[in-house]
């Protein structure tokens, strides 16, 4: 339906479409998911702010220099960075509708993600074994909250990754699966962006304190 309104001073009629026009399914998913990522970004920003305030309060406990192992953090960082580029290759394979290549890249991405989580858990276990538990000091509470929240995001990303691989294996590269894979792509690269902040402001700045 189209309404024609003739303004009193003007001879030219102005047309308005008053019907709800049809949106294809999933047309707004990408923007919606982006806005979710932005809200996640705000949450991480506040965790960074908390760490920025409390990060120097050791309560006579261990300081970053006693705990952090920079070569290990560097290895961890490269795991996440490599998983970002392999996910990118998976997306390129998806655009060419090469399902086999895409699944292979997703497996590699998952393995890098798994390596990242394993190294992080190893680091946490090592710290806790040395008595550097989240309860020890405000520095450690905020450290475990910030880095742990990021690790939890990566873990959920891995669960999502496996789910989508099963979906693709079962239903192929249908439009809905492509959309989901693009959302996960944004999620995965976003987590890499957050990690830049973590290794810079938590680990490297911690060693400078």
């Amino acid at each position: 339906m189209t309404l024609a309104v003739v303004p009193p001073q003007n001879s030219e009629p102005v047309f308005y479409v008053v019907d709800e026009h049809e949106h294809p399914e999933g047309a707004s998913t990408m923007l919606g998911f982006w806005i979710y990522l932005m809200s996640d970004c705000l949450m991480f920003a506040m965790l960074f702010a908390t760490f920025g305030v409390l990060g120097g309060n050791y309560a006579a406990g261990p300081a970053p220099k006693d705990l952090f192992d920079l070569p290990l953090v560097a290895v961890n960082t490269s795991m996440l960075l490599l998983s970002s580029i392999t996910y990118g290759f998976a997306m390129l394979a998806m655009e060419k509708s090469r399902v086999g290549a895409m699944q292979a890249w997703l497996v590699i991405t998952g393995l890098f993600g798994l390596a990242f989580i394993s190294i992080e858990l190893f680091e946490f276990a090592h710290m806790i074994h040395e008595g550097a538990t989240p309860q020890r000091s405000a520095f450690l509470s905020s450290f475990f909250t910030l880095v742990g929240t990021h690790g939890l995001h990566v873990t959920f990303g891995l669960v999502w990754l496996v789910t989508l691989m099963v979906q693709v294996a079962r239903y192929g590269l249908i439009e809905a699966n492509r959309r989901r894979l693009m959302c996960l792509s944004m999620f995965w690269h976003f987590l890499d962006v957050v990690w830049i902040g973590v290794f810079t402001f938590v680990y490297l700045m911690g060693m400078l304190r």
Partner: protein
Amino acid sequence: MKADTHSLQPAHDAHPADGHGEHHAGGSRESYLIGFGLSVILTAIPFWLVMSGALGDKQLTGLAITVLAAIQIVVHMVYFLHMNTRSEGGWTMMALIFTIIMVVIGLTGTLWVMHHLNVNMMPGHDMSTMQ
């Protein structure tokens, strides 16, 4: 091209395969590799700076790694997240700008206020004059 191209979206934004936005479909193998190469360099330099202490001064090193992190975030945004001003009719960029403003207010506000609280309410600070 879809029949109902939104007035917000420029016409060239619509692809035959997936008509909405191009901020996810914009990557090529080259752009991913360029982004990856830049990221490796921008990660390696700060680790090297801190581990070797090449700059000597801690404050200078801190400033340098902050700048490098900011550059790397932009690199990731452009080459991996395919951020641009056109996708979704510019609304992803709008959401990003809003978020950056909120993050800056939240971070600087928190650090500023809490720093002053910390300095002024330190136990033992000027306590003798308060008796």
